[in-house]
């Protein structure tokens, strides 16, 4: 059980913002090395882990997509040694003042996001929440040194250390979506000891938070027969208690809506019931907000399932998940994959 926490903490030591995923990719590569037959990197930086199935060739392919990129910020301007930033991915600027960050310049520089005093701001924001374009990052160095070490376009990541909370909960930044990468790793581990007919392509995808780039390009190359997208979903908590949010720590989300093939939803539901893995229907009336939005419409179309790990405070540096749900997701995926056989695709139709 400590392994999972260790793996997560390790993954959280690396930044890996959308478009700049190299650091996290290397950590995932190391973790997947003993679990896969072949590792490769896509043209835009997604990691592909191939694990051959035991069925007779030509084998069908299942793709697992877990995005590895993180949200964060980027340097836009340097003024008197203070750094101005823009976002990568979606950040609510109200959580930024006072946040510890790391500026990835010529070296990694610790800093803090600063809300300037009202008299240095336009009247429109002097009282209320301050938009990102008026915030500053202070790295505590003299201006000339900042100019030597920091450049326009350098990335800035959250510096919050992960915290273990009670009840097997973990809090930290970028649990969206490193927890899904962890769950995929657990799935690959489970598959070491089980037969699976189909070939498995585990993809740690790039750029989900910005362009869904990895989700558009990796399936084009791999052309899977079905895909499982695993991402975080909303857990009930302060300010998010309505139908879009699932109970915290009480099971995985199974996506349901136009983005998901109903036969795959049914297959996952059946499996979860059979294994007594708690789950909830995660309603997605229009789009899923995940890699599946892209994967489903690549080339001739790919049937998708969407698994969700409920998470509180999404896109803040204190995202919170239950480790139990991560394990459940990994277990469920492995069991589903082990079941895939020659009859599976016949059942994925629209005749219901």
């Amino acid at each position: 059980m400590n392994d999972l926490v260790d793996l997560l903490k390790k993954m959280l030591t690396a930044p890996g913002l959308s478009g700049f995923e190299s650091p996290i990719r290397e950590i995932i590569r190391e973790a997947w090395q003993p679990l896969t037959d072949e590792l490769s990197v896509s043209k835009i930086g997604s990691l592909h882990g191939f694990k051959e199935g035991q069925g007779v060739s030509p084998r069908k392919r299942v793709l697992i997509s877990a995005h590895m990129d993180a949200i964060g910020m980027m340097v836009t301007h340097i003024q008197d040694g203070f750094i101005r930033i823009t976002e990568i991915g979606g950040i609510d600027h109200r959580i930024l003042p006072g946040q510890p960050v790391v500026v990835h310049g010529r070296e990694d520089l610790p800093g803090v996001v600063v809300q300037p005093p009202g008299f240095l701001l336009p009247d429109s924001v002097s009282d209320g929440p301050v938009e990102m374009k008026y915030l500053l990052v202070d790295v505590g160095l003299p201006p000339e040194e900042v100019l030597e070490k920091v450049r326009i376009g350098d990335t800035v990541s959250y510096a919050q250390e992960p915290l273990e909370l009670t009840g097997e909960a973990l809090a930290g930044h970028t649990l969206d979506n490193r927890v899904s990468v962890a769950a995929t790793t657990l799935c690959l581990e489970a598959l070491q000891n089980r037969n699976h007919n189909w070939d498995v392509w585990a993809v740690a995808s790039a750029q989900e938070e910005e362009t869904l780039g990895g989700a558009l390009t990796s399936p084009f190359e791999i052309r899977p027969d079905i895909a499982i997208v695993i991402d975080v979903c909303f857990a009930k908590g302060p300010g998010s208690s309505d139908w879009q949010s699932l109970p915290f720590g009480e099971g995985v989300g199974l996506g349901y809506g136009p983005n998901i093939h109903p036969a795959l939803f049914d297959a996952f539901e059946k499996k979860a019931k059979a294994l007594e893995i708690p789950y909830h229907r995660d309603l997605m009336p229009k789009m899923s907000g995940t890699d599946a939005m892209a994967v489903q419409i690549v080339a001739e179309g790919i049937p998708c399932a969407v698994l969700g790990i409920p998470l509180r405070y999404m896109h803040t540096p204190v995202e919170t998940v239950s480790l139990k749900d991560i394990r459940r997701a990994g277990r469920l995926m492995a069991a589903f994959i082990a079941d895939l056989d020659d009859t599976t695709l016949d059942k994925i139709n629209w005749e219901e």
Partner: protein
Amino acid sequence: MTKNSELTANKGFDIGEQQIELLEKLCNATAVSGDEHEVRQIVLAEIKSFADEIEVDALGNVLAKRFGSGENRVRVMLAAHMDEIGFMIVKKHDDNLFQFERVGGIDERQLPGKAVLVGRDHLAGVIGAKPIHMTTADERMKKIPVDALRIDLGPEIGDKVKPGDRATFATRFKLHGPSILAKALDDRFGVSMLIELLKHPPANIDLLTAFTVQEEVGLRGARVAAYKFNPDMAIAVDSTPAYDLPHWDEEDENVQYNTHLDAGPAIYVMDRATIADRRLVNLFTRAAEAEGIPYQYRQPGGGGTDAGVIHKTRAGIPSISVSVPSRYAHSAIGLARIEDWENTLRLLHAALSRVTPDLLAGERRG
């Protein structure tokens, strides 16, 4: 005049009882984006003896081919979407009332006080609103937010409805004089015309019909259908709004009507998703004039059809859209003219019959 009588002598381009019955069946069916089952079943039943090849793909599109005869046939894709705007039930409240979300673009002001049908069994429900007696004048000037509305199917609905189920307006198809009143004319008109064309195809082309899914939530089905077909050219067949109502100030002219009822099929030059290939605009214009079919150009501007994704597929596919004008799209009751529908079908056949390999042999110029 000879041309017109030749035309009426041809089968399949008149709207008769059979066509109207089919449209009624299609409009009354429920097929919200992502759950197009009911319409898909109707389509498959109708076309199975007419198509040379039929397939249902990963997203649920029905892809049907009918091959023409002769050499060097141009491969023409026609797309019409099976899905309609509607709702998804998202939560059951303690009082047995259901909260819902919209699927596709619906103005929330169209919702209060409407009848709906829920689920595969078409269970009857209503979207109520507070009695006026309990409202204030100020309150009545504000929109009722969707998350405050509820669908009521009666106190003993029990488990028959659950979150995830889809719902549509309960409108039933009706004819009245020259007009049709129905829901989902967008795009059951298109679906009905594609079925007719499969039954009576022009012989000079290979007809690749795509009955697409999920158009209302991002033109998703058409994208993969176009990738699969990889046609030489494409036509999206849809229904487009006619905002041809009077301005409240009689002095002022309505200059944003989009299309007019009674003015015939609407040929698209430009919407927000596609700038039509001029060669295809000319094809349709010339066909209409040659056969004496009334037509109009849809006002350039907003909106989009399946052509929006088709033309950007692979290395590019010359595309255009042609639609039946209809009032009150994306509301409970749409209103259109039978004659506009008929003329659209005629125009499609006339244009398709005139497609030759020369049409797209040169460069796209405007």
